[in-house]
């Protein structure tokens, strides 16, 4: 086929594209009908099928393990039903925030972060540029095949200068095409109806071309699928290629390749662009979710038949399998068909290149160049004037630069790689967006730092496991890296990181990069505190449904700006025409007179921001607005200080609460103390009353009897003696009482501690018992004693302790059975630290309710003998006090009519 025919038909084809795009833009009403529908939308998604699909699938299918070519399509088909949730959510978020690229999307979600936008842009750039360059290779080589008919294939392929020339021309044409449709005007929404129409047309064309060659091979050369496959299976070499069992592909590789293609279909910049940015209505997704898989199915039906046909036709491998689609029709002399197929390949390549470059150029200008210009102040310096044309220039330069780099890459390494491998390396780069994208959509706790850490880690692993070894393979770097590992460490082999062997380099790289990426993303997110703006954006993204319903009331902070400032910004960055259109539309919908408007409310500020974001990126839009908007969104510091204040208030109220609790408890304590004082007062009064009563009683008899004695001098001796004895005994009683009161005073003031000495309590008790022995005998009381043979040392005052023992013994005498008195005394060391003295009587016992009472002052029970109290009522009270001073205790055990046992315990003294 002559070169001129091919060149002319190529140019005609490209002109047709120009025409379609131009007409759609020129007649927006009719154009809209054509573009704004789910079918065009689904077709535009087919930009996914590149020259790689067109040539590479057959090439891959015809090589060992070739069946893996399907992974690239299985992934998207599997994920398509989920688009209804994921893709629609992404679209809604992007529309509400004016996001125009995946870099902007990620940057916006993580606090409108400029640096995150930069990273995403760079990853995209380095991931996609090789992919673009490989399209150039595909087109130029297909061009070469057609024009070199009759020459040896290899010769054609090796004709390097010819190659370059072709590729360069194609690159230039595509650049012009891209600039023409991508940057004709600066649309804040980045929607290019003409371009979409052209892309959709290209999708139809490439499908048509591929079906044509498929039908030709299957039904033209052979007699249908049956005939073709039976012939292919007759060849053991061919059948082995398509057999799953004998293929070299394991499920591990399948899994990872499918995962990669799942992420690629959503997050490849060009896919994001057509699926999200160019989308008119999120509901198109519902239809596209089944239309697009259908398209993939159709375009793949004939991949295997063509591969079989090619292998049958050119068994020796003299024809590169990537080129079967062209060489088969040429071989059979079907030049027109070959031309159609060639144009199909051209359409696949051009659509991919154009959209990818537009998507990349948006990222580069909005996330790299403009932030840089704004930060350095270059934009602000020219404070007046329309900047929109300048922005377009930036965009155009970006496009040229991308194409130039792609061309250089093509010249440097591109020739050494197959379509499929470069495509998959791109996929692996783009897959690094998956964790942060899913986090952006569904995980509010994800932070900018986490996203940054995850992305950088993933990108780094991608570089070391794919990019660098790829360069080594083509000879740009030493092969040693692959065979020996980085720096000679075998654990750092790029294709077997940490000793993990994998049958497939891509799967290996995907595994490590995604694992570490996700790990870092989650780990760092959980350990960092998001800024206020990150929290706001996280809510807007994750809960997009909530906010789209409510309109724009979501802003956490009221924002206000001078209307003039807003107007100015829009004029400068969008151009007067676009800006005025936006503002009048707004004014109409809100019923506002713009002439009189002085302040722009939050709604207008948000509107302006979303339009500016479309033109210059979210981060830059936020930055620019911050200079004119009165109230910036609350900074983290402010937020924290508010939280601090709240915290302080809470603390303060807690302190108050505590104070009032303390007050309450103090009041209660005071009340209790007062009550105690009153009690003491009452006790004191009682004490005085009791003491006076106790004193008056003996004095009464003494006084009366002495008076009788003095009045009756002639009283007989018996009476006189009786009366005198009574007087003596009553006087003694008074003396005793006075002594006890004094004892009590001493005990209560605790004055006795200083005279503590180490003494033998055993001896002391026995002495006390001896002194009372006569009394026991006199009252005819039976005594059972149990004293230990050893000494029992205590530290204390001998007199006081004797007083206790005597008190207990005399109580026993007083209260034991009057007829058959029986008293038990036992003393022993009950533990290495405790001496216990038990004194039991067999009297009436002490009722339970009185057992506590008897240890208080002036309470006493009636003596068994006389039926009346036989003491001052101070004995046990004093004993208890004394024992307390000696760190001892006294208690009583008693049952009615079964006597009482008083138990005194003292700590044993140790040297």
């Amino acid at each position, binding site marked *: 086929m002559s070169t001129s025919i091919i060149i002319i038909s190529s140019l005609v084809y490209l002109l047709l594209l120009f025409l379609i795009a131009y007409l759609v833009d020129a007649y927006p009403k009719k154009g809209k009908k054509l573009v704004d529908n789910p079918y065009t939308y689904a077709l535009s998604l087919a930009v996914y099928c590149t020259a790689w699909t067109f040539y590479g699938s057959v090439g891959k299918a015809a090589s060992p393990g070739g069946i893996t070519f399907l992974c690239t399509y299985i992934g998207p088909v599997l994920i398509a039903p989920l688009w209804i949730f994921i893709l629609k959510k992404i679209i809604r978020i992007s529309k509400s925030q004016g996001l125009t690229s995946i870099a902007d999307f990620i940057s916006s979600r993580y606090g409108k972060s400029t640096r995150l936008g930069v990273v995403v842009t760079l990853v995209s750039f380095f991931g996609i540029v090789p992919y673009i360059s490989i399209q150039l290779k595909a087109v130029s080589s297909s061009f070469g095949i057609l024009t070199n008919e009759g020459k040896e294939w290899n010769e054609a392929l090796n004709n390097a200068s010819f190659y370059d020339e072709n590729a360069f021309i194609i690159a230039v044409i595509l650049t012009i095409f891209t600039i023409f449709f991508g940057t004709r005007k600066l649309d804040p929404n980045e929607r290019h109806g003409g371009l979409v129409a052209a892309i959709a047309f290209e999708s139809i064309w490439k499908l048509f071309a591929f079906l044509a060659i498929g039908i030709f091979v299957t039904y033209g050369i052979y007699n249908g699928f049956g005939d073709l496959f039976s012939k292919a299976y007759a060849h053991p070499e061919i059948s082995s290629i398509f057999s799953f069992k004998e293929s070299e592909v394991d499920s591990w590789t399948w899994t990872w390749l499918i995962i990669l293609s799942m992420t690629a279909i959503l997050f490849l910049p060009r896919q994001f662009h057509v699926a999200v940015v160019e989308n008119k209505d999120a509901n198109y997704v519902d239809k596209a979710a089944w239309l697009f898989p259908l398209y993939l199915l159709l375009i793949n039906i004939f991949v295997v038949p063509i591969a079989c046909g090619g292998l049958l036709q050119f068994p020796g491998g003299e024809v590169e399998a990537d080129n079967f689609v062209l060489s088969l029709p040429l071989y059979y002399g079907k030049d027109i068909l070959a031309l159609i197929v060639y144009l199909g390949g051209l359409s696949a390549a051009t659509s991919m290149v154009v959209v990818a470059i537009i998507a990349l150029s948006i990222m580069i200008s909005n996330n790299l160049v403009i932030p840089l210009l704004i930060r350095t102040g270059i934009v602000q310096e020219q404070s007046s004037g329309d900047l929109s044309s300048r922005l377009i220039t930036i965009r155009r330069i970006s496009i040229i630069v991308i194409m130039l780099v792609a061309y250089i890459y093509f010249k440097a390494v591109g020739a050494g790689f197959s379509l499929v491998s470069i495509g998959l390396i791109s996929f692996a780069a783009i897959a690094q967006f998956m964790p942060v994208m899913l986090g952006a959509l569904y995980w509010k706790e994800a932070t900018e730092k986490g996203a940054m850490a995850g992305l950088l880690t993933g990108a780094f692993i991608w570089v070391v496991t794919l990019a660098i070894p790829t360069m080594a393979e083509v000879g740009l770097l030493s092969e040693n890296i692959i065979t020996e590992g980085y720096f000679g460490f075998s654990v750092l082999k790029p294709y077997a990181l940490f000793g993990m062997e994998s049958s497939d380099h891509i799967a290996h790289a995907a595994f490590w990069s995604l694992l570490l990426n996700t790990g870092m993303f989650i780990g760092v997110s959980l350990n960092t505190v998001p800024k206020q703006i990150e929290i706001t954006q996280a809510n807007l993204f994750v809960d997009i449904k909530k906010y789209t319903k409510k309109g724009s009331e979501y802003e956490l902070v009221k924002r206000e700006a001078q209307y003039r400032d807003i107007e100015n910004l829009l004029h400068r960055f969008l151009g007067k025409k676009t800006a005025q259109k936006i503002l009048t539309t707004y004014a109409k919908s809100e019923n506002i007179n713009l002439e009189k408007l002085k302040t722009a409310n939050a709604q207008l500020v948000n509107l302006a921001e979303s339009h500016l974001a479309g033109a210059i990126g979210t981060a830059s839009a936020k930055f620019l607005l911050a200079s004119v908007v009165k109230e910036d969104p609350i900074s983290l510091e402010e937020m924290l200080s508010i939280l601090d204040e709240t915290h302080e208030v809470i603390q303060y109220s807690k302190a108050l609460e505590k104070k009032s609790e303390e007050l309450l408890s103090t009041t209660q304590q005071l009340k209790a103390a007062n009550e105690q004082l009153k009690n003491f007062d009452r006790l004191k009064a009682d004490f005085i009353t009791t003491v*006076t009563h106790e004193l008056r009683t003996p004095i009464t008899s003494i006084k009366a009897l002495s008076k009788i004695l003095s009045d009756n001098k002639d009283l007989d001796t018996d009476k006189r003696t009786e009366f005198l004895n009574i007087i003596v005994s009553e006087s003694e009683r008074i003396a005793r009482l006075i002594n006890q009161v004094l004892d009590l005073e001493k005990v209560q003031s605790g004055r006795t501690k200083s005279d503590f000495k180490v003494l033998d309590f055993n001896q002391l008790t026995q002495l006390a018992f001896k002194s009372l022995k006569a009394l026991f005998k006199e009252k005819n009381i039976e005594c059972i004693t149990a004293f230990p043979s050893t000494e029992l040392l205590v530290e204390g005052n001998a007199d006081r302790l004797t007083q206790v023992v005597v008190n207990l013994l005399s109580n026993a005498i007083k209260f034991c059975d009057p007829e058959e008195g029986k008293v038990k005394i036992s003393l022993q060391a009950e533990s290495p630290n405790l001496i216990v003295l038990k004194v039991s009587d067999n009297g009436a016992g002490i009722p339970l309710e009185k057992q506590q009472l008897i240890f208080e002052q002036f309470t006493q029970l009636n003596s068994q003998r006389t039926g*009346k109290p036989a003491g001052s009522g101070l004995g046990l009270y004093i004993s208890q006090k004394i024992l307390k001073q000696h760190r001892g205790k006294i208690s009583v055990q008693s049952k009615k009519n079964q006597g009482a046992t008083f138990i005194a315990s003292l700590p044993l003294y140790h040297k």
Partner: protein
Amino acid sequence: MSDKPTKVLLVDDEPNILVAIEFLMVQNGFLVEMAFDGVEAIEKAKAFLPDIIVLDVMMPEMDGYEVANHLRQDQAFVNTKIIFLTARGTETDRMNGYGKGAEIYLTKPFDNNQLVSVVQELATYG
């Protein structure tokens, strides 16, 4: 003063005080009976039917006021005179005593002559 000797019941839980009062009463020609607590006092009073009771206030189990209360409810003791003898000497105690139906309220330690004359007066004039 009638021919019959005046019967006096002495109640106190302190035997030594009883000894003194008994001596004084007997010396002045009264017929004396003694009780050591409230319960015994009521028993003795019912049997002895005294004209005058000298009643200690502070006694265990049943105090003097209770005894007086109990006796006042009995028709047999409508004319019986009660002299409270107490070691409680405050004005409140005194008023308390009169409120309980005492004819005379004497504090311990009492004056021998005063006690005797009070009893004699009560015996004579009622």
